[in-house]
């Protein structure tokens, strides 16, 4: 158990990912190796098409590597069946998307409750979790508002509340500030920082925004499917 705790939360070993466009092989990631320790706030930067989102998809088990191994919390994702992977995702990960991706027909509270419906919690317990998650993101007063009644920043906060409702090990954020104005983006980054520091959530954030990336402990830069800079280099290049 002690060994497992010392091991990185995320381990990528010689991971490659190819896509096929008609008959043509398009390599997206090539022999990528990466360790992400528990509790780290990692930012991944890079131009469009560099493989950032693909990396996120592989770590989240939404996609499978062409070669190599992806291990998260000591689980080899390649060995899991589709249904086990789905269950594992619901128990381990929280997703934050650029376009928030809230269900427009549900209120803020109902959106946050969605992943909790997959658990064995009672209605009362689910309500407690929803209340707590919305309180953490500062939206206790907006529980009954529909997404259309919220600002972009508030929608993203609801999305974050949904991501943390099940108390996952790791948050995966794909351009979480990409659709927000500077003030709202700042607030969201503060919130992510708080989740990392106070609640110990491991966060992997894909971003184009250098200001957002600076909030992370470490920045990795991807180009043509390979990491090309480490922390200091990446910041220098920005």
């Amino acid at each position, binding site marked *: 158990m002690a060994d497992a705790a010392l091991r990185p939360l995320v381990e990528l070993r010689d991971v490659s990912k190819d896509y096929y466009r008609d008959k043509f092989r398009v390599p997206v990631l090539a022999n990528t190796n990466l360790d992400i320790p528990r509790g780290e706030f990692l930012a991944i930067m890079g131009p469009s098409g560099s493989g950032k989102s693909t990396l996120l*998809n592989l770590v*989240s088990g*939404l*996609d499978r590597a062409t070669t190599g191994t992806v291990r998260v919390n000591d689980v080899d994702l390649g060995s899991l069946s*589709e*249904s086990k992977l*789905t*269950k594992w*995702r*619901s*128990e381990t990960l929280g*997703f934050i*998307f650029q*376009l928030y*991706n809230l*269900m*427009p*027909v*549900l209120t803020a509270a*109902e959106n946050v409750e*969605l*992943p909790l*419906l*997959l658990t064995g919690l009672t*209605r009362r317990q689910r309500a407690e979790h929803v209340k707590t998650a919305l309180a953490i993101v500062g939206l206790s007063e907006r529980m009954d508002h529909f997404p259309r009644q919220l600002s972009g920043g508030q929608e993203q906060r609801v999305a974050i509340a*949904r991501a943390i409702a099940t108390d996952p090990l790791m948050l995966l954020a794909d351009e979480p500030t990409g659709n927000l104005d500077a003030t709202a983006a700042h607030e969201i980054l503060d919130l992510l920082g708080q989740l990392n520091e106070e609640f110990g959530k491991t966060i992997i954030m894909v971003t184009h925004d250098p200001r957002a990336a600076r909030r992370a402990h470490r920045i990795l830069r991807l180009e043509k499917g390979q990491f090309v800079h480490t922390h200091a280099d990446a910041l220098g290049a920005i």
Partner: protein
Amino acid sequence: MKFLPYVLRNVLRNKLRTLFTCMSIAVSLFLLALLYAYIEVQDELGAKSVNYHRIGVVHANGLTFTLPISHVDKVRTMPGVKAAIPLAWFGGVYKDDKLPFAQFATDPQFVMQVFDELTLPDAELRAWQGDRAGCVVGARLAEKKGWKIGDRIPIKGAIYPVDLNLTLIGVYDGPDSSDREMLWFHWTYMDELLKQSRNAAAGAAGTVWVKGESAEVLPEVMRRIDERFASSDAPTRSMTEQAFQQMFTEMVGNVQAFIRNTALAVVFSLVCVAANAMAMSLRERTREVAVLRAIGFSRQLVMSLVLSEAVAIAFLGGALGVIGAKILFGIESVTSTLLPIMPVFYIPWSTTIFLLGVSAVIGLVSGIVPAWRAARLSVVDGLRKVV
């Protein structure tokens, strides 16, 4: 159950589309309810008629040929026969009625013995028996026409070249399933008029109706009747009341098969309409489905959510149409106005429940392809899609 609010919210997501889908299902199932109820009511009436131990005797060549009145007396004397009457269709026109009601020439001495589930006050029966130009009518017909005892009812002959000038003497009533829209008058009155006009139809009883002593004797009585007249000028074909009703229905073709085939075509087209609406709805929600899958909703769960939504929409439409029909045709005045040619009509519960089940099946079948596609959706591609 915990997913129900989400399913219902999606049902109401695009209210106009849901309304149109529901209405197309509602209107079609309303019509199907009428067609299926017709079959069921005929079957139920046929089944109930078994309890009345009645036999219908027609000419062996069919209903267009008539039996002579002498047959009636001969049948009355046969063992196992409780009563027998002539029942001749007059088919006249009352005032400017577009749809004629049933008028039968019969024998007032015995008719209440043959149709003993019907009731006619003794005083009215005796008065009718003593008045050759008198008639009695069913309660529903009297109500529909606004007739009272003593009213004059002139009926112009359409099949026969004679007119009837009748006086309403009595009103009979009976169970809900009985035909209470008939008019009965003296067979002798019609026969006199026909003789005066030297019409060849004089002396014809039309059909003969027999009340048997019990259900057990009916086969033997039918055999005896047909055997007795086999070598006469008017050979007979006897059948139970249930078989008679079936024969009558089948005169207009194989109605049941026609209705069932029509129903299948309607159900198929409804499946297409509902499937199209579901497919459109899910196409607009590709990203949402991908998000559900990403946060841990399994393929089976996504599929059952989509199927539940499709079933909810179809069931809503079905309930609207079928229960609407049940309520509407439960009101007697509505039934007699909308379906004046049906003396007994209602939507049985069995039809209601069956068609509600059909609407759920329509939803289920219409949802299969969209649900399967949603469940098979690539999460990565779905998240990339910007609608």
